[in-house]
């Protein structure tokens, strides 16, 4: 059925129908993707350590994550005594729900976008900030010192890394002159040397580093450093409370990788294959890179983490931005 | 009631809540939160006026952007002041901080 006729028969505006359909599709995608990514992470981890990873449950261990999900759902939901019950249970949803909003404006192909917004990039950046809030609430509501330290770290880290991230993204916006993700892709060509990553390599590197930090992935996973803080901000969460944080982490990985793909790697553009496949391929390649980082680099110390952001990434991003501005002005 | 009046009433509610909170709150951070409420009311009022009347839309949005910038600057400074006060007094509650009295 055509969306136009559906909208007409329901008597509502087309964008609304589009958005609802998009949201449902994205919800399905996020769920499926989390299962797939957790499996992929384990497999990747296994292969980096020269062991097979999960292989018992289902073909190639594919059902391992499903089994884990069932286990998580079946677990008792426990609220730590002395904690702030309301905030404690608000936090996982605050972490999880914005992800849908962030997935809405992503262009999967030439025509396939859940909700095309002309300020799509800004929308994603704005809602990305909510993740910190969720970590703060989780840490605070848990009434647990490790959780609170994790939350404090998350705040300091995300404040520090949001700046170079925005500056790196800004350089791309300077080049393309738009915040519409679809138009940004349209500015790039099919071949790798026509992508913005080729003309903005420094911005790309800075973006990737900041994205790893913003999604709290190793080697920047200090808010949940298990060797120091038990599990950081989600120490006290059981069952699906933890599950939602988990889902949010993997969905966030998708979002940052998809944004990087859109901004720097030519989005859905590529030879031979149709658009969505290229997009997915690039996104998963980036996610694989992030996992590769995780199994290569040891966790940084906190002062090193902040020094990296304030002393290296921000100045570099500023210089890059300035150079881009000059180039745009000259061209 | 026109839409403009509705928006302005919402903004007014924010202003009233902010003023109330500024008097009611005893800790510096609570006061900061109240001030943010008031600034939000101001922003909303300006944007509503710009969008719903014949006034320049762009000007209104720019003014609100500047208000947001000011709010960020103000929050930074208040954070620093709270830090200093806590260092000196051991807590951030306005009731016991007498030293500024003339």
């Amino acid at each position, binding site marked *: 059925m055509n969306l136009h006729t559906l909208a007409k028969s329901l008597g509502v505006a087309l964008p609304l129908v589009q958005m609802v359909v998009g949201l449902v599709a994205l919800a399905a995608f996020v769920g499926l993707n989390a299962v797939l990514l957790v499996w992929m992470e384990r497999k*990747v981890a296994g*292969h*980096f*350590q*020269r*062991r*097979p990873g999960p*292989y018992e449950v289902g073909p190639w261990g594919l059902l391992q994550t499903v089994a884990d999900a069932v286990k998580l759902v079946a677990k008792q939901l426990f609220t730590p005594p002395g904690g702030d019950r309301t905030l404690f249970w608000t936090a996982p949803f605050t972490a999880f729900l914005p992800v849908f909003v962030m997935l809405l404006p992503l262009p999967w192909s030439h025509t396939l976008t859940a909700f095309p917004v002309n300020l799509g990039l800004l929308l994603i950046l704005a809602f990305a900030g909510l993740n910190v809030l969720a970590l703060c609430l989780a840490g605070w509501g848990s009434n647990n010192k490790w959780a609170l330290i994790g939350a404090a770290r998350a705040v300091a880290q995300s404040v520090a890394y949001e700046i170079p991230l925005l500056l790196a993204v800004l350089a791309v916006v300077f080049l393309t002159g738009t915040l519409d993700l679809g138009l940004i892709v349209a500015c790039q060509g099919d071949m790798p040397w026509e992508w913005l990553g080729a003309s903005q390599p420094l911005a790309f590197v800075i973006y990737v580093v900041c994205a790893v930090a913003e999604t709290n992935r190793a080697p920047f996973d200090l808010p949940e450093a298990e060797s120091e803080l038990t599990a950081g901000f989600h120490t006290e969460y059981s069952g699906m409370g933890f599950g939602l944080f988990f889902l949010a982490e993997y969905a966030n990985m998708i979002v940052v990788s998809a944004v990087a793909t859109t901004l720097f790697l030519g989005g859905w553009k590529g030879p031979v294959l149709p658009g969505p496949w290229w997009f997915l391929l690039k996104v998963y390649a980036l996610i694989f890179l992030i996992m*590769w*980082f995780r*199994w*290569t*680099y040891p966790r940084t110390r906190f002062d090193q983490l902040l020094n990296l952001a304030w002393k290296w990434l921000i100045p570099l991003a500023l210089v890059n931005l300035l150079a881009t501005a000059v180039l745009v002005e000259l061209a | 009631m026109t839409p403009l009046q509705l928006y302005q009433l919402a903004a007014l509610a924010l202003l009233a809540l902010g003023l109330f909170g500024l008097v009611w709150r005893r800790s510096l951070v609570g006061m900061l939160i109240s001030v943010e409420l008031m600034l939000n009311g101001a922003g909303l009022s300006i944007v509503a006026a710009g969008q719903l009347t014949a006034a320049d839309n762009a000007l209104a949005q720019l003014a609100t952007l500047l208000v947001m910038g000011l709010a960020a600057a103000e929050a930074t400074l208040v954070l620093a002041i709270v830090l200093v006060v806590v260092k000196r007094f051991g807590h951030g509650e306005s009731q016991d901080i007498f030293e500024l009295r003339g």
Partner: protein
Amino acid sequence: MQCLDSVRKQAKSLWSLVVGLRVTGDNMLRPQITVHYPRRTVESLEGYRGHVQLVGKPGDPAEPRCICCMMCVNSCPSACITVQVKEEAPPPPDPAAAAAPAATAKADAGATDWSERAQVHGGRLIPKTRDGQVPPPEPPAGADKPAGKAPAKAAGKGEDKAGDKPAKKAAKKAPGVWSLDFTLCSLCGTCVAVCPVDSLEYSSNVYLAGRSREAFSGMDLLARLRARAGAAPTSGEVAE
């Protein structure tokens, strides 16, 4: 110049990140080194240090090489080895000499004099070599002194020293009881190291399991040796 140096240093450290990625990437592409355990097991457990077990004589695998010198008993830091000389062994000149150290060995094992033990240690560890340890009629020269000393102290009797040498010449002492308290054993390997006749080795039994504590508090190593000698050598042996 200093500025340039620091830039070079940073570039070098950045390059090390790439090297790290390459190392892990290489490892990812290499074949896996783990074994799908329940379906396959590793071929060789040579490096595995299981509980201590006795080594049979070359001719008679059911009989241990052990000469009851008590060095393992005395050097064990956890005092978890109990060795008693077999009663029916060809009698030494003075039957009491053989019986006495055997009787007291167990009681004494828990309360060994520390200074004495240090001597035994020091005297034994140096000359010990892995090869050329076929039990000769006479123990190696280095083993002579402590071998004589340790039982002497353990027995607390002077005549043992006299009875020791003829016992070795005339009839080798064989253990009647050789039990190991595995609940105390720390697997330090000192007993394996000090044994002058290489009668002790690590077992490669990775499936050691039992239902009660008692199964391990007095493991009868002689019985295990006989069981191994009787049965074909298997690795799937379970504690009694």
